[in-house]
């Protein structure tokens, strides 16, 4: 890079520094802040819920777990003894008895 390039770069940096100095610009007018705050729309319930949920990870985790817990509680609260359960016991005894008979049968006896 030549000396002329260096000088041009330095001059450009200097001028950009002066020109793009934000302190030289006026601040935002006071009425703008008022206008922004006065025109905020109310949050919809969905936006509020989304905002609340995403504030921290435990809230998201809790929201994900809640349906499972609800399912468990509903499932257990509606539990009634199955009237067919007795019959199942009887069927199990009959099955075991038959199985015993079958095992005691010698090969060829079944015909």
């Amino acid at each position, binding site marked *: 890079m030549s000396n002329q390039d260096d000088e041009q770069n330095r*001059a450009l940096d200097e001028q950009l520094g002066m020109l793009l100095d934000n302190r030289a610009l006026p601040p935002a007018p006071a009425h703008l802040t008022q206008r922004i705050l006065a025109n905020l729309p109310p949050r919809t319930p969905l936006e509020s819920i989304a905002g609340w949920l995403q504030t921290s990870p435990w809230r998201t985790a809790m929201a994900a777990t809640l349906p499972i817990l609800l399912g468990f509680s509903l499932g257990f609260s509606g539990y009634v003894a199955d009237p067919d359960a007795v019959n199942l016991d009887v069927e199990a005894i009959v099955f075991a008895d038959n199985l015993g008979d079958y095992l005691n049968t010698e090969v060829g006896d079944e015909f």
Partner: protein
Amino acid sequence: MLAVRNGDQEAFAVLVRRHINSLYKYALRLSRCATQAEDLVQETWLAVWKSAHRFSPGQVRLTTWLHRILHNKFVDAHRRNKLVNDSDVIDAQIDPYRPDLDAEQQQQLEHLQVQIDRLPTRQRAALLLTCAQGLSNSEAAQVMGQSRRAVESLLARARRTLKTSMPEQKV
């Protein structure tokens, strides 16, 4: 910001007062019109209020996120031709008048301002974000939705254009 997510208007007001000047100045330089800058800033804060839950503190700085929203609003408005074109009137608020400079330096600054205004929008935005708003190249890339290398390339091109258009320096 957490409070803003929960709909806390007081917290939002604090946030607005803290960042509005920086955003307004960027909007003013981009749009080169006070009225349009005010509209852009208002739209930006409205978007912040509505989508505060989308801000992820670990991934991006709040300043960068705010600039990004404003930048996107500007690009949208520019596409819809809502904003002034390069040939239109430039607001007097960004007139580079500096009473501390002599006439020649003043003239040089005015010339440079005209050249900056003539730069393509993306080059101008990259230059403003890094030189005026004080963002790093990476942050400017996040604001503009570009890669860091793309922003560096835009900056290099902008500087080259400005340099070639500079009048001969008396050094």
